[in-house]
C-alpha cells in the first residue's frame, strides 16, 4: 500500500480552495484616469511596477501644486501673496525638493520659468480673491465603493476646499453665497476642447469627487472648479485678458454644479473603469495591458518608454531603429 493510500484510507479530506477577497485601492488620477489615458502605460508602470525614466509630466504638475500649497501655507500665517522674487524663490525651493526626491524633468529651467509665469499670473489674477476662501488644501477624499457587479473598492482623491462667495469675489457671472463650499483641482495644461474625451474625464473626476465629498460630509459641494493653468501661458492673451477680467477667468476655470444625474453617470463610468482594470488583472500575463483600442494622445505616447514598440504609436517603429 502506498503512502497516499494510507492517507486516503485514514481520513484524509480533500482540501478546498480558499477564496479570499482582496479589495483594491484606486487613486482617481493615478489609477482611473491613467488607465483611461492608456491601459498599456498604466499596466506596465503602475501595476507591474516598471520604473519610468521620464518624469517630465509629473514634474511640472507637482511643481505647480507644491508652490501653490506653499503660498497657501504662508498665507494662513501672513495674509499676503508673494511678489515676483519671492515667487521665484518658492519655485526654486520646490524644484530643489523635487530633484532631490528623484523626479527628473526635461529642460528643467524652461519648465521652472513657465511654472513661475503661470503661478504668478494666477496669483495676480485671482489670488487676492482666492486664498481668503481656502479652507483646506489637499483635503483627502476616500470612500469604499461598490461596482454594479458588487465588487468593492476604495477610491482616493485629493482636492482643495474653498468656502464663501468665491464667484462673487472673482466677479464671475453667477451668484454664490457665504454658505457655499467648493472643491477645486488644478491641471497644469490648457483646457481641453469642449466635447473632448479628456475634458469629459476631468469633469467625471470632479463629479466623483463631489460624490465622495457628499458621502464624507453629508452634502454636495455647491460647485466643482477645475483650474487650467496652461490657459495663462499665452502672453498676448493674458495682456488682452486682463482687460476683460471676468471673461478671462471664466476660460481659466471650468466650473460646474454637481448634479445627481451627472454624478451618477460619472460614478458609473468609474465603476466600469474599475471593472476593466480588474478584468485586465485577471487575464493571462501575455494578454494583459495591451495597447488600447482607442486613440492615445500624442503627448502621452511621447512621454512613454514603451512607445518604441506599441501599436498606439506607429512613429515608434522608426524611433526604435535610431541609435541611442
Amino acid at each position: 500500500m502506498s503512502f497516499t493510500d494510507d492517507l486516503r484510507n485514514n481520513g484524509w479530506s480533500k482540501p478546498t480552495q480558499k477564496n479570499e477577497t482582496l479589495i483594491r485601492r484606486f487613486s482617481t488620477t493615478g489609477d482611473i484616469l491613467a488607465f483611461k489615458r492608456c491601459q498599456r502605460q498604466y499596466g506596465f508602470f503602475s501595476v507591474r511596477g516598471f520604473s519610468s525614466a521620464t518624469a517630465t509630466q509629473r514634474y511640472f504638475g507637482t511643481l505647480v501644486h507644491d508652490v501653490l500649497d506653499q503660498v497657501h501655507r504662508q498665507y494662513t500665517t501672513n495674509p499676503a501673496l508673494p511678489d515676483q522674487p519671492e515667487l521665484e524663490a518658492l519655485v526654486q525651493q520646490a524644484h530643489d525638493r523635487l530633484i532631490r526626491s528623484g523626479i527628473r524633468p526635461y529642460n528643467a529651467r524652461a519648465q521652472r520659468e513657465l511654472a513661475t509665469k503661470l503661478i504668478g499670473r494666477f496669483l495676480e489674477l485671482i489670488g487676492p480673491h482666492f486664498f481668503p476662501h481656502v479652507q483646506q488644501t489637499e483635503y483627502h477624499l476616500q470612500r469604499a465603493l461598490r461596482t454594479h457587479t458588487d465588487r468593492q473598492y476604495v477610491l482616493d482623491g485629493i482636492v482643495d476646499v474653498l468656502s464663501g462667495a468665491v464667484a462673487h469675489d472673482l466677479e464671475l457671472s453667477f451668484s454664490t453665497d457665504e454658505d457655499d463650499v467648493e472643491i477645486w483641482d488644478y491641471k497644469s495644461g490648457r483646457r481641453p476642447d469642449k466635447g473632448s474625451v479628456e475634458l469629459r474625464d476631468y469633469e467625471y473626476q470632479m463629479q466623483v469627487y463631489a460624490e465622495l465629498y457628499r458621502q464624507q460630509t453629508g452634502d454636495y459641494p455647491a460647485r466643482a472648479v477645475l483650474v487650467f493653468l496652461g490657459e495663462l501661458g499665452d502672453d498676448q492673451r493674458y495682456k488682452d485678458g486682463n482687460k476683460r477680467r471676468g471673461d478671462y477667468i471664466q476660460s481659466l476655470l471650468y466650473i460646474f454644479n454637481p448634479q445627481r444625474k451627472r454624478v451618477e453617470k460619472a460614478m458609473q463610468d468609474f465603476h466600469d473603469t474599475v471593472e476593466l482594470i480588474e478584468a485586465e488583472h485577471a487575464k493571462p500575463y501575455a494578454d494583459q495591458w495591451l495597447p488600447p483600442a482607442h486613440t492615445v494622445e500624442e503627448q502621452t505616447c511621447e512621454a512613454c518608454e514603451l512607445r518604441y514598440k506599441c501599436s498606439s504609436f506607429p512613429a515608434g517603429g522608426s524611433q526604435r531603429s535610431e541609435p541611442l
Partner: protein
Amino acid sequence: MSFKYIPVLDVRIMRQHVLHNVKILDYKNNRSDQLQFLELQFDHLSFNWEILRRVEKSREILVSWRPNHAHPITHQPQSIRNDPTQMISLEHFLDAMARTSPDGNLPLNTDQLLALEHDYTNPLWMIAGPGTGKTHTLAWLVLKRVLVDGVPANRIVFTTFTRKAAAELESRLIVNRQKLIDAGLTEAEDVEISDMLVGTLHGLCSRVLRDQRYEPTLRIRVLEQELTQQFFLRRSRNPLLQCQDLAFWVRFRMAKSTDAYAPSLAFRAEGASKLFNRMTENNVDLAAMQASGNPELMLLVAAYAQYELDLAERGRTDQAHLQRHFLEFLGTTTGQAWLTDGFTVLVDEYQDTNPIQEAIYFALTGPRADLTICGDDDQSLYRFRGATVESLIEFDRACQVQLSRSPTAVYLSENRRSHPAIVQWVNDFINHPDMHDPSVRVRAPGKPQLVAASSIMGAYPAVVGIAEPTHDLAATKMRDLIQDLMRDGLIEDYAQVALLTFSTRETSQVIGRYSDVLRTAGIPVHNPRSRKAHIDARFLALLGALCWMLDPNFDQARLPASLPRGVPAYIALARTAFQNLIATGLFPELEQYVQDSIQAIDHAKFDPNSGHHFLERSGGRRVTLSGLLYKLLAQEPFASDLSDEAGGERLKALNLVLAEYESLYGDGELRLELDPSGVPRLEGWTLYAVYAVFVEGMHDGLNDPEDEDASVEPGKVNVMTIHQSKGLEFEVVFVLRPDKQPFVSDTHELEDQLDPFSRRSNKPAIRRSQDLRAAEDTVRLFFVAYSRAKRLLVLTGKLEPGKWDRVLPGATHVRHANDLRALGVHLL
C-alpha cells in the same frame, strides 16, 4: 461606600481608573429572568473574566465601590467617544455578528470573544499562536471599537508588518462592515473604513508626514531597499567606507580576526547600512558612545553623523530614519495638535517591533492609552532587522513604564489550521530546552499550549520524515510524494504544496537539488527569491548589450580604479551572452541597433570648451541608461520576453536596479571624454560607477521581483524562505534541511554592542548570551515552518548523526539520537 445599578461595561472602565474594591452585589439575568447573586472582588491581578462574561448577559448589575485614590484619573473615556446616542450595546453588536454567520453562531471562539469584549480603558495584550485567528479577531475588534466603544473611525490606527497584510486587513474590515450591514446593523453604514489609518507603520509615517507638511520630510525620498541604501553610501564619502581597519569590522562580527584584509568596499557599504539602521532603531545615545573613548565606537559615531548629514543634504531618508522623523514630528506643536489626546492604536505582528517603533506606538497612544498589540513571540523572526521580541514578551512592564497601567492579557490558543498531530508536534517543539530560562522571559508569560480545533482530522500520520543518507535521495522521495499526492487527487493544485527552508538560494549547498529534481520531473516551481535572476541567459544578454554599447572594448586599464572582485568576470559573462544571442543570426535589428549606437557615441558632439560633456540624442536630449535599456527592450527577443511572465519579470529586475542606481548617480546621464586619438567615449569614472556600483550590486545574486498582491503563485510548488511564509498556510509543507544549526551573527553582536547606549526606557535588565539567543532564533524559525502545515508536515533532508536535534521536540537523548520514530514521526 456607594451602591448603584450600572451597565456592566462601565464597571470595567471604572475598575481600572476610578474604583477599587468593587463588588458586584446583584445582577439581573435577561435570558432566564431569574435574579442571581454574585460577589466578585475586582482585583485586576486575579480578575475572573469568566465570571464577568457570564454576568455580561445582564444589562445592569448592582455594584458597590469606594473611590480609588491610589490610581488618579488621568484618562477620561468620554473624551474619545462619539455621540453616545450613536453607539450600540455590545450585546446588540454580538447579535449582529452572529447573524453574519450562516449557522447563526458568533464567528468567534471563547478566547477571541474575550479579546473582543475588552474595552479601551487599559491596553490589550493579545498573544496569539499560529492559526488562532488573530487577524480575524482584530478586524472585528476594530469595528467594535467604533460601534460599541464609540471611537471615531478617524482616530483609529491599525498597523501590520507588510503592505500585503495591510491590504488584506483593510479588505477584511470592509467585508466585515458590509456583513454587519447585511445582517441588519444599520449603524455600521456610518462606519467609514477609509477614515482609519490602516497600513504598515512606514506607510503611516509617510502619509502623516506628507499630509502634515512636516518641513524636514517634504518631498523626501525614501531609500526603500537595502540595496538602495548601499548605493547611497557608495555615492557618499562616509568614513566607514574608507575604513580598512580590520579590528573595526571584527568588533561588530562583520569580519574574522583571521581575515587577511578588511572587507571589500561593497561589503563595507552593506555593513555600514546595517550599523546605521540598528543605531537609529535603538535610538542610541551618540554622546555616550563618543564619551566611551573607544576608538571604534568613536569612528562609528562620526560615520553615523556624516551619514545623517548626507541624508539631509540630498533629501533622502532610510526606513529607520523615516520613523525617527515621525517620532520627532509627534513631539512638535503641529504633531501634538494632530495627536490631541492620542489614537486608538492596534498593532498586528508586534513580536517583530523594534525599539523606535515601540516608542512610536506608545507616543501615538498618548493619554488615551488605548493600545492593543497582537502577536506571537514564538514567531518572532526579524531580529536581523532590529526587531526585539522583548517588545511583546515584556509588554506588561513597558505599559507600566510608559502608561502607568497594566495591560489585559488575552491568549488565543485554538488552532483552526492544522491537523491535531501537527498541533501536537509544534506544542512539543516549542517546549524546547532552548526556550526556557529561569532568569529571563524567553516566551510570553502564562502562555497556554495550542489546542487543536481544526476540522482537519483523520488517523493518518500527519507528521512525516524523509530522512535519507544524501540530499539527492531525499529530493527524489520528496518529488515522488508530491507526484503521488497530485496523481491520486489528494491535492488539486501544486500551489497547495510549499517547500520551506532558511535560504531559497538555489545552489547545491542549499536547496538547488530539491528544486532541480522537481523541475526535471515537470513539476512547476516558483522561487522568486532564488537569487538567480542575474544569471538568467536573457537577463545577461540584455545587460551585455548595454555594456557593449557603452564600452565596446571593455578595456579595464582605462578605468580610474580596479573593479571589485567578481565584477569583471560577471561583465564578461554578460557580454558573451549578448554575443551568443547575436550569433544565432535571429536578431539582426538588435545587432544593428547596438552597432549604430556604438557609432553614434564615436561621433557624439563634444565641445572641449564646454564644462559639461554629456551624451545626447539628436535634438539635444541627454541619453540616460534607462533610456537605452528601454530601447533595447523594444528590440527582439527582449520585446517578446516582456509578454512572458517569467521573462518579463526578470527583465524588470534589471530595470528596477538601474532606476535605483540612476537616482543616485546623475540620473543615469552619461558623461563623455576623448580617447587619446580624439574620439569621444564614455568617461572613465562614469563607466567605473556603472560597473563598480550598478553591476556590482547584482553580480553575486539578484531576486526576481515579487507580486505584491499575490502571496502564493497558483499552479506551482512554491519555494520560499520560512520568513516569507509567515502569515501563510499550505496543505502540505516540506521543511527542507532540518540540519540547520544556530549561528551567532553580527545581529547578536550588534544587540550587545549597542545595548548600553540604547535610550529605550524599558529594556530588559538581563539579556541572554549570544549563543542562547541564536538558539532561540532557530527554534522560532522552525516553529513558524512547522505551523504553516495544515494536513501534512514533512521534514525532509539528509540525516546526519546529531544534526537534526536542534529542530526536533522531545527529550534530549531522543533528539540527540535523531530518533524520529521515537518522536512519532512516520518515516517514508
